[in-house]
């Protein structure tokens, strides 16, 4: 029961997400005999038992730490082992919102894939709703089924089937009752082939929504044809463009300070020239007949008497390693996107089917 409901304290057998870093969230199942070994150190499961979820835990060696988090669908999306390209939270959350999926909804999902969206849907539809998910690739089906089982979702609210829905439709035998889905999500190479089989498994009593998820625009075209053919209306295709931003600080470098710095450079340069002039006035020119030793000695004397102290005027911290926000300087808060951004996940095609008149008032 990891993804539905909340738990405060870590217990034996719990699924815990060990947060090592934003790109390294490791799922572990608590087993008091085991130890989690990471580049941050060693963390015996036994020491986790009884800790509150959210605890920052130190490695037994004393260096390094991790955070112990309770699985949520969103964290699972960031940490699950990928078997396919997964559906990320900006897409899944929008689809959920737009299709009006809520507790009690009955959702069809094909294919299950890596079950990223499946977990989010299970959390949203909850025990009062149901998720009918289908996967055609047997290894993935088995992997997903195992996960649902381990995560306490199998049966309620998830029913998974190994099926090629394009060929063999959606009707199933391992569920007591009709599917009667109120929302459909198709993430398949050829969703138009599956659309034909939906009428048997969607509710006739209410408006039903569908979202088809396809990376290529040509797939969208074929999907539109199929939706039209099978009586789906209010069709609209959209795409979600999501970004993450990082906060940084940029030093405020005033042009007046840059001018003053140049003045300072100039002044010190002139001072250097002046000192050199005085040195030569005092010591005269170097003489050809001087010995090497005398030449060396003179050079050192010249250096010592003509050098200008290193300036203290360093308005921009040149040559120093300045940390963002250093109080000796002024800063402006700025934001930057990731170095590489997700420019495309897929096109989302939404459509709706009205309730069948004969089955209503």
């Amino acid at each position, binding site marked *: 029961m990891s993804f539905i409901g909340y738990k405060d304290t870590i217990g034996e057998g719990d699924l815990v997400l060990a947060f090592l870093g934003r790109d390294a969230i490791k799922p572990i199942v608590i087993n008091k005999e085991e130890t989690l070994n990471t580049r941050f150190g060693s963390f015996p499961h036994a020491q986790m038992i009884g800790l509150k979820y959210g605890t920052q835990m130190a490695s037994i060696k004393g260096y390094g730490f991790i955070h112990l988090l309770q699985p949520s669908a969103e964290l699972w999306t960031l940490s699950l082992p990928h078997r396919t390209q997964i559906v990320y939270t900006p897409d899944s959350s929008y689809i959920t919102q737009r299709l009006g999926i809520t507790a009690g909804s009955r959702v069809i999902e094909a294919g299950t894939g890596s079950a990223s969206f499946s977990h*989010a849907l299970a959390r949203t539809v909850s025990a*009062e709703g149901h998720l009918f998910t289908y996967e055609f690739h047997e290894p993935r089906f088995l992997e997903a089924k195992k996960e649902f089982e381990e995560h306490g979702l199998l049966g309620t609210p998830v029913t998974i089937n190994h099926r090629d829905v394009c060929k063999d439709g959606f009707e199933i035998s391992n569920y007591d009752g009709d599917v009667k889905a109120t929302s459909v999500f198709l993430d398949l190479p050829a969703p138009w082939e599956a659309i034909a089989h939906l009428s048997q498994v969607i509710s006739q009593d209410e408006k039903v929504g569908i979202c088809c998820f396809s990376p290529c625009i040509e797939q969208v075209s074929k999907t539109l044809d199929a939706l039209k053919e099978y009586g789906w209306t209010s069709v609209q295709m959209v795409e979600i463009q999501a970004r993450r931003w990082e906060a940084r600080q940029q030093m405020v470098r005033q042009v007046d300070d840059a001018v003053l710095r140049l003045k300072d450079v100039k002044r010190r340069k002139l001072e250097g020239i002046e000192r050199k002039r005085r040195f030569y006035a005092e010591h005269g020119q170097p003489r050809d007949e001087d010995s090497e030793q005398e030449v060396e000695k003179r050079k050192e004397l010249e250096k010592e008497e003509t050098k200008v102290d290193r300036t203290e005027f360093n308005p921009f911290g040149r040559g120093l390693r300045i940390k963002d926000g250093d109080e000796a300087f002024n800063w402006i808060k700025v934001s930057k996107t990731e170095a590489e951004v997700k420019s495309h996940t897929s096109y989302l095609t939404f459509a709706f089917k009205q309730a069948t008149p004969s089955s209503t008032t």
Partner: protein
Amino acid sequence: MTFIKRQTTVQYHQFCLIRLPSEGIKIVEIRPQGIVKLGKFGTFAVDQIVGFPYGQSFEILDDNNVRPIQGSLVELEDDEQDDSLKEKIQYLRQLDVESSETNRDLVDIGNATQELTQEEIETLKKTSNGANIGEAIIDKLIKSHVNFSQKTKHSQEKYLRRKQQKFLRRFTVDLLGPSQLLQYFLEKDPTKVLDMSEESMGLLLSLANVQPGGRYLVIDETGGVIVNALLDRMRGSGELLVVHENEHPNHSALKYSNFEPSVIDRMVKTINLLQFFEPEDERVQWNDLSQQEIEEMKSSKKAHYYRRRDNAIQINDAIDNAVKGDFDALIIVSTLYTPTLVKKMIAKVGGSRPIVVYSQYKEPLVETQVESMQNLELLAPTLHETRCRPYQTIIGRLHPLMTMKGGGGYLFHAIRVFPLQEGVQAVGRG
């Protein structure tokens, strides 16, 4: 756990959505014997649509009657009418045909439609007076688009339908869900909902891991649109503690939630910022009177006593709730300055639970993130931006819509954690 299934048909005492062709959306209350007035579209009796499933379209007849019709309203409009024609008509209607400047532009008008030749324009100029020339051109435009000259019944019907598009007396009734309520306010007054888009709302609900049975700490400056969305995902079980900055919370949008008042009373507790942050000072000192003392009261005084008692209990319960803390999520949709606000409220959030903040502008969240990066009680602070880009969805003519609404807001998300007490030499900070 209580579970309240969502309505799928039009029922009395509900608020629902009415969609009109090219007119946006209206909210309508389903009152027995009520009459709904839709301006030039006509009027109809509410009783006529009760029991029909959401999504049903109707045509308005005389005497407040309606007739259910097949298909969605959008398809009932001529589906060949794509963006470019709508643009041309809109462009033409916007031009001020009467001003002297634009007379010179009449060539431009005709050309802009790419439909009329120089000759045709000159003819129109001669045969129409100034005020009607725009409409005359639009008329010609529509005719050419529907191949009116073919003079088939089909094309003639299409022509008449388009010309009269403004006067089709049709509507669709739909569920007034959180997205629809949001859309309603975005059209009427986006500032009320702090310019939040549907995709931002969806992302907020997911990042906050909203589900039935949750116990959420909320600041909602949208007048209840957020609270409504939370209730919709919770469907009758769980609880919200809503903190507000006024004497009384503004939950004007909650009447559209379609939950019974008793459900809202049970699930939505409110408290003001002063009570929240200085609970011990703000508890109401209250002592119940004895049964005998109460019986001796005049009825008006008795009512007054019970009112004051209820008030005290409500406030004290809310304060207890706040003091208990350990909420399953902190959700902030506010114009209060969030860097300090988040910092002060973290303590109330349970371990491993999310904090989600919405802001119309990115800059306050950038400051929130800068603050949070120093705060060991907040893990993985992240600033999210999500934008939905709709396409003209016409087979053979796919492209993103030429224009769309700007804005939509930003989200900050972090996970509440319990840091180690002494500094630990970090091998790598999470």
